[in-house]
């Protein structure tokens, strides 16, 4: 019972990190290269979860995922499932909420690669995926690591969005942060403390990994 919310949080964080990594590579690459007029608008939208109260994002997701909404109706008719108060809904909410934590380090990483490296690879007639996996990503390891760890850690600590769209369903949406809140509400402080200690330990280890590997993202941000 103690470990179920922790395992659910880990599962949510892992799936969210994998999905966001796949989405953020093309997105952050485009943001690092583009001079489009749409770029600042897109950057502002991506960064919104950094400044918005999680309950605001959660509120709009609640409306969007409800069975009465067109998205909720479409998902139900096509996939036979509801997004509200379900694990898939939590994954989508987490991806939106943690998007800037993956995109921004990766964008900084792509910007840190000298233009001449790309041009050298271009002259060697390498295709985009070869350049991405053999040249770009290996030379921005600290940015990739920062993105992965920050996204994972941020999703682990998610509360407001999960509470709004996931509720508190054991084994489905009752993640660690919700479990702490639930146990405190029930005045069960001992169990709440155990959950909290586990989250503190996990968060400390993840940040320790970032700093040990000389996290380029933090370093660049502090310059």
């Amino acid at each position: 019972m103690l470990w179920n919310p922790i395992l659910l949080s880990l599962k949510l964080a892992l799936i969210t990190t994998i999905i966001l990594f796949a989405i953020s590579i093309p997105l952050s690459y485009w943001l690092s290269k583009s001079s489009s007029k749409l770029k600042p608008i897109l950057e502002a939208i991506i960064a919104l979860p950094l400044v918005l109260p999680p309950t605001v994002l959660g509120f709009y997701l609640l409306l969007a995922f409800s069975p009465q909404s067109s998205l909720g109706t479409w998902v139900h008719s096509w996939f036979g499932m509801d997004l509200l108060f379900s694990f898939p809904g939590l994954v989508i909410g987490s991806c939106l909420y943690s998007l800037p934590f993956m995109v921004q380090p990766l964008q900084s990483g792509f910007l840190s690669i000298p233009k001449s490296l790309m041009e050298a690879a271009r002259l060697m007639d390498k295709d985009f995926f070869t350049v991405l996996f053999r040249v770009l990503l290996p030379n921005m390891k600290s940015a990739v690591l920062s993105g992965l760890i920050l996204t994972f850690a941020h999703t682990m600590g998610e509360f407001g969005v999960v509470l709004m769209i996931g509720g508190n369903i054991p084994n489905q949406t009752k993640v660690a942060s919700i479990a702490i809140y639930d146990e405190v509400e029930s005045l069960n402080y001992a169990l709440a403390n155990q959950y909290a200690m586990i989250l503190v330990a996990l968060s400390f280890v993840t940040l320790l990994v970032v700093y040990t590997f000389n996290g380029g993202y933090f370093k660049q941000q502090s310059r």
Partner: protein
Amino acid sequence: MIKLDIEKSFKGTSSLWEMALSCNWDLGRIIGISGPSGAGKSTLLRIIAGLEQPDQGHIMIDNQVWYDSTSSINTPAGKRNIGFVFQDYALFPNMTVQQNLLFAQKVKDIRLVNELIEVMEMEAWRDIKPQLLSGGQQQRVALARAIAMKPDLLLLDEPFSALDPALRDRLLGYLKMLHQKYRMTIFLVSHDLDSLTKVSDQLLFLDNGKVTSQQNSPFTPIKTKRCLAKLIKINASEDHSAFVFEFEGERIELKLPANLPIKWQIGDNIELPYG
């Protein structure tokens, strides 16, 4: 024959900078390009390489059209078979010296990579990553990598700018030797006229995007006759070896970097450019 007739303009902070060049070059030569900063030397190399596009004009090499604004032809940079030595060397930091050379090749040719590593005396750093090498060593790796691609054209953008004179002469020696071995056309951009005249067959001077002068290098005339000259004396110093030849009663002195693997001995008859 390389035929180039291009125009390109850039909007500067206060004025419009315009480049207009019309040049022909024979294949297989070393073309030295010099001129003041902002003359358009690097831009010319980048346009030849396909990294930048002219506003209009055409570029032809050996009857192949690489760029033609009227028929909208623009061969991608990767299809031009060009080796480019960048000012910052552009070596891939995550790869070792050997991996950098192998990665550059479309068809892997470990024999050529081994040969280049041996010829350019890079055996000791074969498995070392570029950040651990000095500027001069990185320069050699960049040159070797460009040649490992078996390019038709080799473009070098200010390759000697950060090197001391001794190292510069050593690399010029390598360049000359590699040119003789692999017979490619080389475009060499440098501020250093002394270096250019040592290796170039032709010199091109640019200023403000225009050709101000184009001439054959005084040291390597275009219409070269060859003669068999007898080596009569070798004066070796720390940096250079001066080889003194005799041909039809005339003495010819040839200075080469000391570390080139030349095995000439006094009394040998060596074929030399003459005239």
